């Protein structure tokens, strides 16, 4: 399955708006300017998902995972390395980042940050495309990237391809980098594209 250039362009535009909203939320939470990288959209078979994500972050990661459902179904993840997770804790709680470990306080902060960012992003999808998206409770895990991907793919027989949408973000004064990742099945990708095309027609 491949997207046409036009479909890819339309998808990136919607994702730009959604990730912009997420960046604004992160900026409000931390009191710092957030620089957002241009979102990249790639499609890959599910078994190559880990390889597709690997260039972004190495080593153990902290990830907040939410399943979303409705007309579009999938998985949304906030993925950050351990150092960045500790810095976020310091920014939100005034507790020192060092030593760089994910303690109870950091878990609490990361889960809520993930919840806010993923909702900001997917909620924008819902608003723009006029569909109701429901969310599961956010779940924080600390493991390798492969472990995170495995938790998404195990038991998903119908999920053969995944749309990986990722955008890095950096807090200007804190040198923190993380990624938002959205994984969608082929059926949901098709529904999403149809909704985007319908939105374009409605705007003419």
């Amino acid at each position, binding site marked *: 399955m491949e997207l046409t250039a036009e479909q890819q362009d339309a998808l990136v535009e919607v994702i730009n708006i959604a990730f912009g909203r997420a960046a604004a*939320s992160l900026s409000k939470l931390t009191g710092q300017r957030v620089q957002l990288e241009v979102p990249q959209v790639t499609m890959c078979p599910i078994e190559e998902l880990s390889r597709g994500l690997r260039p972004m972050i190495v080593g153990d990661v902290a990830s907040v995972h939410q399943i979303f459902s409705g007309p579009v179904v999938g998985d949304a993840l906030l993925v950050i390395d351990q150092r960045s997770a500790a810095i976020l804790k310091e920014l939100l709680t005034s507790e020192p980042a060092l030593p760089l470990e994910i303690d109870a306080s950091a878990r609490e902060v990361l889960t809520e940050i993930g*919840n806010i960012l993923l909702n900001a992003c997917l*909620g924008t999808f*819902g608003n723009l495309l006029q569909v109701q998206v429901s969310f599961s409770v956010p779940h924080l895990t600390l493991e390798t990237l492969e472990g995170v991907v495995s938790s998404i793919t195990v038991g998903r027989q119908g999920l053969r391809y995944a749309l990986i949408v990722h955008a890095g973000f950096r807090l200007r004064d804190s040198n923190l980098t993380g990624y938002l990742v959205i994984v969608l099945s082929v059926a949901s990708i098709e529904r999403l594209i149809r909704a985007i095309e319908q939105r374009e027609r409605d705007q003419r």
Partner: protein
Amino acid sequence: MKPKVLIVDDSALSRRTLRQILEPAGYAVEEAADGLIALELYSLDRPDVVLLDLVMKGMYGLEVLIKLRELDANARVVVVSADIQTSSHTLVEEAGARAFVNKPFDKADILKAMTSVLQEPPGGTYR
């Protein structure tokens, strides 16, 4: 007497942040980490306002809202959620919420919502 507020949120960070905003402003704060505890505390203490998260472990916030309104048709419930969807605002308004404040919240937004909800008569309008 201080107005009583019940914070219902499964995030300890959110509960703590809201408490830090509300207590210095003169509110008496109680907390519930899930919907069942919230319903029990509401029955016992009848707080003046409930600040309610939507996506929580156990009972979903919308279900808690409906049950609170069954317990007390005049319950003043303000939804505080990261969900920014217009359709979600509509859903909670139809279920009887008085206001919706999005996370991440501002101190000013929370206090403004509290003041306006407390000033309204029972069965007041959605903001």
